[in-house]
Structures are given as structure tokens and as C-alpha cells.
């Protein structure tokens, strides 16, 4: 869809960067155009009429004019500033993480309406106080679905036999469950899997073996407990209300986090930067809670 000279769109701002002294480049996700980069002139000046409407994690209505290179935001109005989310350090960080995922996986001018709805929905969910971890996992799982990487969780991706209630494996390269038999077969002739095997890419300092022991040291698959599989299957086909009703203990929670984030890193072939901050913050907030 190619917009006319002046056009209007809803947009969720996912990133911004400075352009010169007073302007900003705003990256947002829109229902009709997918990812959209545009210039907000004078957005750094005090009293700018664009100002807060183009801050990250804001759902706005934008009026744009076609530019030679990037389009120019001429007017803006906030639809939802997600103020409850922005009043809490942890939830802001969760919001930035899902914004970074959208930014990393999408390209400009490629419409994906379900992805816009998923992002909007997740930001609304993060405005509530409970279940932020579940919101992140649910978002990751459904993001994969809308991008065409829906994990195959019911039949073994190699032999197609129904998955049994034992410890199975998640294959990153095949995007689904490997039964224990196929996993051991494959691993006989499978080179040790390195997450960063693409041309000369350095292993980022934040993603060490301690954080994702399974992913780095093992082969191309990740062991998955029966409980984790059950939860993933449920989340794949339910709404937030149902997803949040599941009680998740902390070791199951970190198992789910690891398998989904490793799969995401495998697909992106690079680190998601805000994960390091979420980890740092989580350990800090945990320590703090224990002190009190």
C-alpha cells in the first residue's frame, strides 16, 4: 500500500533516536504499513507540539507528509500513553524489550496487522500489576506465530509421531519438538550448535554460558520438561486471561524464558540487547525484595 502525499495512521512508537540538534527519528509500528520510520522535527525543543506523543511506548495518531527520504510527522495526538506501565521501572523495561523484538523482526513497509494488535494488547496487559513474566512469554510465543515461526508442539518434527509425556527436546533449527529418540539420532551426526555461527559474528559479552547453559553447550536442541511443554501448548491457543491463570513456579518460569529466548536468538542470529538489562534489573529487584 503506498500512501498519498499526506496521510494519517495509528502508530505505536517503539524507538527514537536523535537527528541533528533538535529533530528525532521516530520508529513506530503501524496497522497498515508495518514498521514506519519518520522524522519528528523540533521534537527535542521544549514546548514541541510533538514532544510526548512520539516518546517510545506511546500509542498515537500521527499525521504525516511524504518526504524525499523519510516521511515527516506533521501532527500527533496520544491515544494511549500507557501511563501505568510508565510509572514502574520493571514494566517500562518489559515494554522496551517487546518493542525491541518488534523492531528486530520486522521490516519497513510490510503490513502485519495481527502483530500490531499483539503489541497493543501486550502494552495494555503490562499496565496491570500482575503477571508481567507471563505477558512476555505469551508475547514471544505469539510473535513467533505471526512471523511464521509457530513452534510445532504436538508431533515430533522429524518422525511425526505424537509427542509423549516425557522429557522431549526443542529443536531450534526445525522449530519444534524432537522426541528423545530422534534427538539422540540427530545429535550423533550434528555438529555442536553455536548460536553465533553466522559469518564471523562475535559472541556478545552478555550472553555467556552461565546464562543459557543449555543453548550454548548442547547441540541444536534444548531439553523441555513435560510441564513446560504443557504450558507452551496451552498458551499457544488461549487468551491473556487464561494464560495468566496458570501458576508458574520460578524454575519452570526460567525454563520457558530460556527456551523461547534461545529460539528467538537463533532466528535473529544476534542478541536482543534489552535482555541483559531485564536480567540485571531482575536480580537487583529480587535482592531488594529479600532485604525487605
Amino acid at each position, binding site marked *: 500500500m503506498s500512501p498519498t502525499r499526506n496521510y494519517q495512521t495509528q502508530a505505536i512508537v517503539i524507538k527514537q533516536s536523535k537527528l541533528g540538534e533538535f529533530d528525532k527519528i521516530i520508529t513506530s509500528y503501524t496497522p497498515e504499513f508495518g514498521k514506519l520510520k519518520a522524522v519528528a522535527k523540533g521534537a527535542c525543543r521544549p514546548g514541541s507540539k510533538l514532544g510526548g506523543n512520539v*516518546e517510545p511506548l506511546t500509542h498515537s495518531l500521527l499525521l504525516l507528509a511524504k518526504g524525499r527520504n523519510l516521511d515527516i510527522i506533521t501532527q500527533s495526538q496520544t491515544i494511549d500513553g500507557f501511563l501505568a506501565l510508565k510509572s514502574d521501572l520493571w514494566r517500562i523495561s518489559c515494554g522496551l524489550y517487546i518493542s525491541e523484538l518488534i523492531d528486530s523482526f520486522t521490516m519497513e513497509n510490510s503490513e502485519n496487522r495481527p502483530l500490531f494488535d499483539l503489541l497493543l494488547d501486550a502494552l495494555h496487559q503490562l499496565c496491570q500489576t500482575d503477571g508481567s513474566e507471563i505477558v512476555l512469554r505469551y508475547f514471544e510465543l505469539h510473535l513467533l506465530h505471526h512471523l511464521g515461526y509457530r513452534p510445532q508442539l504436538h508431533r515430533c518434527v522429524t518422525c511425526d509421531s505424537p509427542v509423549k509425556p516425557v522429557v522431549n527436546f526443542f529443536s531450534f533449527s526445525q522449530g519444534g519438538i524432537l522426541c528423545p529418540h530422534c534427538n539422540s539420532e540427530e545429535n550423533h551426526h550434528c555438529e555442536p550448535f553455536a548460536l553465533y555461527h553466522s559469518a564471523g559474528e562475535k559472541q556478545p559479552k552478555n550472553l555467556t554460558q552461565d546464562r543459557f547453559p543449555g543453548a550454548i553447550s548442547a547441540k541444536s536442541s534444548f531439553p523441555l520438561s513435560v510441564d513446560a511443554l504443557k504450558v507452551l501448548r496451552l498458551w499457544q491457543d488461549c487468551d491473556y486471561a487464561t494464560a495468566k491463570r496458570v501458576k508458574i513456579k520460578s524454575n519452570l518460569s526460567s525454563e520457558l524464558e530460556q527456551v523461547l529466548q534461545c529460539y528467538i536468538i537463533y532466528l535473529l542470529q544476534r542478541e536482543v*540487547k534489552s535482555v541483559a538489562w531485564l536480567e540485571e534489573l531482575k536480580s537487583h529487584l529480587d535482592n531488594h525484595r529479600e532485604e525487605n
Partner: protein
Amino acid sequence: MASRFSASLAEPVARLVEEFNKLPGIGPKNAQRLTYHLLRSPNEEAKALAEAILALKEKIRLCSICFNITDRDTCSICQDEERDHSKICVVEKPSDILPLERTGKYDGVYHVLHGTINPTQGITISELKIKELLSRLQDSSVTEVIVATNPTLEGETTVMYLQHIITPLGIRVSRLARGLPFGADLEYADDMTLGQALDHRQEF
């Protein structure tokens, strides 16, 4: 832009035009005007400018206490005993100190973070002068930290993080009030600004 003209210009002229053009707020036209101005001006003037630019890079360093820019080990603000050293105002960058000083309303000292927390750019605690701030709070008589980061999402994230780690030390953490900028129009204010302006409304 400058390089397009450079074929028709003498090399030293083209080179200076290009260098000026890299500076903020200076377009190709202005770059040429400045260059020709220097060409016409006396030798001493051009020399003084060149020396001032060199001295800037050679002599300037960061204050060992507050990380403001200075030409000594400790900046003039940190050395000033008249100032109230129990109050520290935390800013993003050295150039934020000047406007605060101009208000004439602040008599404490400063701490420059050299950035704000920006998780998606990979900028977190270790990239900023946050450890240094905490160690200043350990062994001194600081009673109040005023966080004066910009009213942006990154600035807010930084405020909340600092509040989270400093409050347990028994030190008061405050922040600049947020609200409508002078000369603004209510109609165009965003929700966050207007909401905070209401929250922090003042009685007459």
C-alpha cells in the same frame, strides 16, 4: 554537500569548509562564509582560533569527583567551599550544568552520568557513572540527591532506577518537577505531561 563544490575550490579552502560543515547547525553555505571570513582576517586571529581548538582537546578532562569537564583534576564547582556539598544534582551531560547554574537557584554540587539508561541500545549501569555516584554517597555527608535527567522515557527510567537504589541508603531522592513548559499550549500537551502537571499542581 561541501564535497560537491570542492572540485572548484582550492584544497585548503575545501578542507576547512568540509570541517565546518560537520559542526552542528552549520550548513554548507555557513561553512563557506566562515571559511572566507577567516581567509580575510588577520593571521593572529586564525592562529588564536586554531590554538583554542587544540587546547580544548589537549587540556580538557573529566573532574575526578563529579565527571564534569574541567582543565584541572577537580572542577571549580567541586572545589568551591561556599557551595553546599550535601546536595548532589545528577545530570545527563556536562552541558546540562550551565542552564541549571543560570537559574541562580542551586547552590549544591553536581554529578554527570554521561548518558541515560537505554536498554535497547545496550546502555545500562556499567556504561554510566552510576557506580561512581554510589561511591560518592558512601563516604560523604550527602543528604539529598536531585535527579535532573531529561523528561524522556530514558530519563524517567534513569530517575526510577536511581530512586530505587539510593532511597535504601537513607538519602532523600528528589527530581525536577514536570509540567507544562512556559509558552506551551494545553491543547497540544501530551497525556504524561498534563497528568504530571495536574499531580504536582500548586496552590496560590
